[in-house]
């Protein structure tokens, strides 16, 4: 006795074809014989179920389909088989399981059109979002009591304080890499003492703020988008509106403000730690004593380098927070959207930060802060 389902076609006395099914006809056994059953191409006079040991709706369905395609009278059915066949009979349809897909050339043009229209809509939405922020700022200035101090402090902690560890480590390593690699190149000119200039100027002016902005985009921008997106999905944002709390004031403003306030601090901190990293390498491999390295920084780095970094930082913070909050508030539909929007928030933030950094570089050089 085998565990699987089986069938055979026999000639009966009157010359008709008798299909004899045997074994269990279950969802677990049907897969093995379904293709063979579909290849039956003779008219049947009788479908004999008396040897069927077990049956479920899938088995009953297969038998109903056989009867529909080839005719024949079902005999020997158990009470359960009859009941199940009655339940599934007539439930056949041919609706597609996946939604219909258009041919590829149509889909491509449609996708391009969608992109164009969507980017137009997105630009409008973004302008609208900026407008809402301005309104929220105005409202908070007029009614300072509505400002969410606690939410701001909480966000300051999440964006700033809890990022100190990872940003410190990253900056320290970057300082080491710049000093070490820079020294190798500068040694060819016998100018390894200039490593101090290299590390000091590049971290305060560029890398400190830029790397911090990228880190904040990854840590906080993504968190903003995911949090706000989930809150939109669970209707928390709508609940706030009905209670009379403006989500812009309660959710978006504290996040944006915390990023704008924290970015200069984090950027400066990052530059300082990177310089320490450079000084450590200077001490270990270039023979520049640690404290000499630090005093030299004061002599070779013009003060405006610090200003350049500190002016860029809040702008980068604004961009990162805007991208995160905007994408988060655009979430609707399903949980997949939260993931997509979060990715988009991070990608857009980093891209915008780097583009803007290039403009800043040109601008500051032109005004003589080279």
């Amino acid at each position, binding site marked *: 006795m085998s565990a699987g389902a089986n069938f055979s076609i026999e000639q009966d006395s009157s010359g008709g074809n008798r299909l004899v099914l045997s074994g269990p006809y*279950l969802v677990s056994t049907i897969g093995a014989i379904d293709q063979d059953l579909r290849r039956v191409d003779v008219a049947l006079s009788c479908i004999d179920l008396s040897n069927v040991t077990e049956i479920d*709706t899938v088995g009953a369905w297969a038998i109903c389909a056989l009867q529909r395609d080839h005719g024949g009278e079902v005999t020997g059915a158990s009470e359960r088989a009859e009941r199940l066949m009655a339940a599934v009979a007539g439930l056949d349809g041919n*609706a597609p399981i996946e939604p219909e897909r258009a041919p590829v050339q149509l889909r491509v043009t449609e996708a391009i059109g969608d992109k164009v229209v969507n980017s137009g809509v997105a630009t409008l939405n973004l302008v609208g979002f900026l407008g809402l922020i301005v309104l929220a700022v105005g409202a908070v200035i007029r009614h300072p009591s509505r400002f969410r101090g606690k939410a701001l402090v909480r966000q300051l902690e999440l964006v700033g304080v809890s990022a100190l560890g990872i940003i410190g480590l990253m900056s320290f390593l970057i300082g080491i890499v710049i000093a070490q690699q820079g020294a190798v190149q500068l040694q060819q000119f016998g100018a390894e003492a200039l490593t101090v200039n290299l590390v000091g100027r590049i971290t305060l002016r560029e890398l400190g703020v830029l790397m911090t902005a990228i880190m904040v985009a990854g840590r906080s921008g993504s968190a903003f988008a995911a949090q706000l997106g989930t809150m939109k999905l669970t209707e928390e944002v709508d609940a706030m509106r009905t209670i009379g709390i403006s989500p812009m004031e309660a959710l978006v403003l504290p996040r944006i403000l915390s990023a704008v306030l924290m970015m200069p601090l984090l950027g400066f901190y990052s530059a300082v730690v990177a310089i320490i990293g450079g000084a450590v390498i200077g001490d270990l491999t270039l023979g520049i004593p640690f404290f000499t390295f630090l005093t030299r920084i004061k002599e070779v780095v013009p003060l405006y380098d610090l200003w350049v970094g500190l002016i860029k930082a809040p702008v980068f913070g604004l961009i990162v927070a805007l991208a995160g909050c905007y994408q988060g508030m655009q979430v609707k539909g*399903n949980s*997949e959207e939260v993931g997509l929007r979060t990715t988009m928030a991070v990608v857009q933030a980093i891209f915008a930060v780097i583009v803007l950094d290039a403009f800043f570089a040109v601008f500051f050089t032109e005004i003589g802060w080279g």
Partner: protein
Amino acid sequence: MSEIDEIDPDDFRHRRFRGDYPIVVEGLENRFGDQVVHEDLSLQVRRREILGVVGGSGTGKSVLMRSIIGLQTPSAGEIEVFGRSITNAEPDQQLGVRNRWGVLFQGGALFSTLTVGENVEVPLRQFYPDIEEDLLHEIARFKVMLSGLPEEAVSKYPSELSGGMKKRAGLARALALDPELLFLDEPTAGLDPIGAANFDRLTLELRDTLGLTVFLITHDLDTLYEICDRVAVLADKKVIAVGTIDELLALDHPWIQEYFNGPRGRAALASKARAKMDKPATGGA
């Protein structure tokens, strides 16, 4: 037929359970930190019955269901489903049981990126990879229709469905593997009275045609009166009573009395009595 009646433990997959109690819970204990949800809880579910599970909020109805289906490891106690231990089973051994039950979660828990039809196909693909695509699609279609949804629903995404349709789609997925045991977590919560009554009728019909055993968590007194064979009452961290509603009312427990004799309980009873009187006149409508 006699050879089928012997239960051969090695050939578990192709046989229906023939014991009397598909679910046996003995001395179950669940605790979260200091909070004890269940203590020495015992329950037996009879084959082919619809067992309603009731209890106040926070009495651990859902935790009990999650323990039985293996989503929650109990702190102590023994749970057997189809005569096999769930509590001490290796994940591999549980697989032999997992394809024999279907679960309808409260919100439907449909996979939101798949259509209804694809949702129904997920468990089939998981357990029976040898089923060909055509048959898979056919099974998905008839299960969806068996759950009372229109044929067109198979290609819709869950976000395009109403609450009642989501529950039916969830039911279709729960029925995908032709389970013998069906767990329903508040199936009529959030449905309008007509939708709820239809869902009750569907549950009853499916039990009768497919021979299901149904474990049903509910707060809906109409459901309890209309379709449940027995009702288990959860209170004081255990099942304090199991029986028909009449049997429960005979007990002198304050919570049970308040539950069934409160204004809503009386209304449900009255509507059942009315339905019985109307039946000869209106026929099977």
